[in-house]
């Protein structure tokens, strides 16, 4: 067994060397010689980002509960560390035992955002594993990937031996069991892939043929082997209380993005905002019981020593037992000098009182996400919020002592006109006006508002999966127009916006097909990595990669797709009917709203899982 050796000459030359040395509190220690399966959980971004990811903590905990398995962690080394490692021929290693990646049985990546794809290639390469799946043979690890982006696995199909679609807590055990059986059977690499292709939720791309039409759209995707299903259905955990949730998470030494205890209240979201992929792919809504959460909170504080707990979900206010649960939790946290943070809360009297009580931090910024500037467009996206709701919320917050507010919007939503864009400025200004004279606002001063716009990216498994994305030029024009009118009308509003070229690439990768593998490979060879970081992203590099492979990025990003077109991800089933998504798309164009899951079922299809809100009595 090889172990990577590091010394001061290397580590004292890089920023934050503690990212590369492991040994954190609660890190799992096992003797690698005494386990059957060695699994490297890989997060394709910096340690500070990766260590904030709840999914990794969950699967690390689940796998390490098995005596026969040792799950270790690996992150993308920052560029300073990477260049020293390459210079000295040091392979990418895990933090637990400093073992090079190529020595593992399975290397599993989580795909949280499209712009991390090139880091997957870079980590494989640095870890001594052939980047292309077809170039791996006996003795190489199996490379798998999961996470939200895996719902359209096609762009990464050339690099990944198998994908895991959906939630991993149960299926990971089935995969490891199958791996052990296969290992003791002594058969070849293909045989393992054949075997796991039969596990629900597992997708082995090499077992499928993709045929294209002359116009470049997909004609059909067909399995080549008897064990590979026509359609791969995602896995879910039907009862969250039935699976393990870690209360002994690793406590990093250096500050990470989310450096606190994360309590997951529920999965899924009742809302059905039409742009939101998470709102569809995690259905149905399933809650963890308040009793279980309280127990987890108490044990977590004891075992980690963290002084902050954050409630995690897509929409905290929608947790059905929120008031009683928070009351009980606060009684505990106040006694233990622990603060409670409550993201994704709708602002009302209840939540403001809660925030007041929960954290003793200075009242600085409060954030809202109206997403669109006019009521018309908010109806298009099924965001059930009105101008009046927003004004009332902000007034409440201001009266409660908050003096700066940040509002999030998207530019380029389907059907958007310049009137909708201007509506963003109008909304900001009308909020400032409505707060004038409120107690809590100083005479002549007023509140500060930040308007932030991202670029709308159509995602698979949403009603907008057929929609064209705005061109880079159109988005830039909208940004400049909005900037101009805000500057002309007020100085109280700060405006922030994103680089539309990054969003364009995100759109391409999100709805891409298998041919994009070549583009990703070329871009990586040209030096692409950390594409999610502005200082490392190069649009020119990606353009070059498209040119070299004779493909057009606009084909993927900016084209309206017909309802009859076979989409590259049609053989993946997240439980949402294609017909439901089509109806939702049509309703969007009509500006018709769809009720949320708590007020009534709209037959999206998720009831097929017989879980959570789909079977709960309302």
């Amino acid at each position, binding site marked *: 067994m090889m172990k990577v050796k590091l010394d001061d000459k290397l580590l004292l030359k890089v920023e934050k060397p*503690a990212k590369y040395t492991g*040994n954190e509190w609660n890190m799992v220690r096992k003797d690698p010689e005494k386990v059957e399966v060695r699994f490297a959980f890989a997060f394709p971004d910096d340690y500070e980002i990766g260590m904030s990811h709840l999914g990794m903590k969950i699967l690390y905990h689940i796998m390490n509960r098995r005596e026969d398995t040792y799950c270790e962690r690996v992150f993308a080394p920052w560029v300073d560390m990477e260049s020293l490692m390459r210079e000295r021929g040091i392979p990418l290693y895990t933090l637990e035992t400093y073992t090079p990646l190529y020595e593992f049985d399975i290397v599993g990546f989580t795909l949280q955002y499209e712009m991390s794809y090139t880091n997957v290639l870079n980590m494989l390469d640095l870890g001594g594993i052939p980047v292309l799946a077809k170039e791996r043979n006996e003795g190489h690890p199996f490379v798998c990937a999961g996470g939200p982006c895996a719902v359209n696995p096609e762009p990464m199909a050339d690099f990944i031996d198998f994908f895991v679609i959906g939630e991993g807590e149960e299926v990971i055990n089935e995969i490891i069991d199958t791996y052990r059986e296969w290992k003791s059977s002594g058969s070849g690499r293909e045989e393992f892939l054949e075997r796991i292709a039969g596990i629900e939720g597992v997708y082995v791309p090499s077992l499928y043929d993709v045929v294209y039409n002359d116009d470049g759209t997909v004609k059909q995707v067909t399995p080549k082997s008897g064990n590979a299903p026509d359609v791969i259905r995602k896995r879910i955990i039907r009862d969250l209380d039935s699976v393990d949730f870690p209360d002994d998470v690793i406590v990093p030494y250096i500050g990470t993005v989310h450096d606190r205890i994360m309590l997951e209240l529920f999965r899924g979201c009742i809302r059905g905002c039409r742009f939101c992929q998470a709102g569809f792919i995690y259905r149905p809504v399933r809650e963890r019981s308040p009793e279980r959460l309280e127990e987890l909170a108490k044990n977590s504080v004891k075992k980690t*020593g963290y002084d902050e707990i954050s409630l995690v979900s897509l929409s905290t206010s929608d947790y059905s037992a929120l008031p009683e649960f928070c009351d009980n939790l606060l009684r505990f946290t106040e006694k233990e000098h622990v603060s409670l943070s409550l993201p994704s809360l709708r602002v009302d009297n209840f939540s403001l009182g809660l925030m007041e009580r929960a954290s003793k931090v200075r009242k600085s910024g409060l954030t809202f996400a109206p997403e669109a500037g006019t009521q018309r467009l908010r109806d298009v996206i099924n965001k059930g919020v009105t101008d009046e709701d927003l004004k009332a919320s902000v007034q409440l917050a201001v009266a409660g002592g908050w003096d700066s507010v940040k509002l999030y919007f998207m530019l380029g939503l389907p059907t958007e006109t310049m009137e909708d864009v201007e509506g963003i400025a109008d909304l900001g200004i009308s909020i400032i006006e409505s707060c004038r004279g409120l107690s809590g606002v100083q005479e002549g001063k007023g509140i500060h508002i930040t308007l932030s716009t991202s670029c709308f990216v159509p995602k698979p498994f949403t009603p907008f999966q057929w929609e064209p994305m705005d061109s880079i030029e159109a988005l830039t024009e909208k940004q400049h127009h909005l900037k101009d009118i805000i500057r002309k009308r007020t100085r109280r509003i700060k405006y922030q916006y994103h680089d539309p070229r990054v969003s364009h690439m995100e759109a391409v990768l999100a709805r891409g097909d298998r041919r994009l593998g070549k583009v990703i490979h070329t871009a990586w060879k040209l030096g692409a990595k950390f594409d999610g970081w502005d200082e490392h992203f190069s649009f020119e590099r990606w353009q070059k990669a498209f040119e070299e492979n004779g493909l057009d990025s606009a084909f993927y990003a900016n084209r309206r797709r017909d309802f009859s077109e076979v989409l590259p991800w049609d053989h993946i089933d997240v439980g949402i009917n294609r017909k439901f998504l089509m109806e939702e798309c049509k309703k969007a164009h009509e500006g018709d709203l769809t009720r949320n899951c708590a007020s009534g079922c709209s037959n999206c299809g998720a009831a097929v899982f017989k879980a959570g809100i789909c079977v709960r009595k309302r």
Partner: protein
Amino acid sequence: MARALRFRFSRNEKLKYLAHLDMLRLFERALKRTGLPVSYTQGFNPRQKIVFGLPIAVGLTSSAEYADIEFDGDVAPETFVSKLNETLPDGAEVLDAVPLCGKSSIMSIIASAKYEIRFTLPKPLEQDEIDGIISGFLNNNDITVMKKTKSGTKPVNIRPLIYSLSVGIDGGSYILYAFVSAGSENNLRPDLLVEAIRQKTGLPVETESIHRSAMYASAFNEWKDPFEVADD
């Protein structure tokens, strides 16, 4: 039993890449895990009442770090040492603790420190040769080097901050034993000292590791172990 303690701890190779703030966070969390009744400050953002003697730079190991801590109830020094050692990560260890009765915080009393700086030379030197170089270095009344401060780089004469220097030979490498001024006022960083030796003597010192082996308080013109002045 005491409501306040002064304790000494070490950190070894395993934790030496941590910055000072990371060490503070590490202790805060380890203390929380002990369940001991640590006192908290009042106000918006309650913090544990713990004060560290002197920040420790990235890359250094130490066998003599000090901190003062307060409790809401009585805690025996032995209980504190054993409980905290159970919750400290590999690489940090509490060595001992004494009741703290005095009012001066550890941060304000630290005045000097001892370092063991292990280094190599491209060409080996005999003991007397190297002794000669070091005493020549110390014979300068003015050893001015550029020191980085918050407001930029400025010249500082570090000679008055050096109390003693000696070199031992250990196999293929050398150990510089340095006794220098330390603390919130006139702190001489060991890496700056090495840089000064390199510049003034031309000796191509290649640092391998730096270890802090002692820290002292100054009391009535005498160097005192911080534990000895826990009642002041």
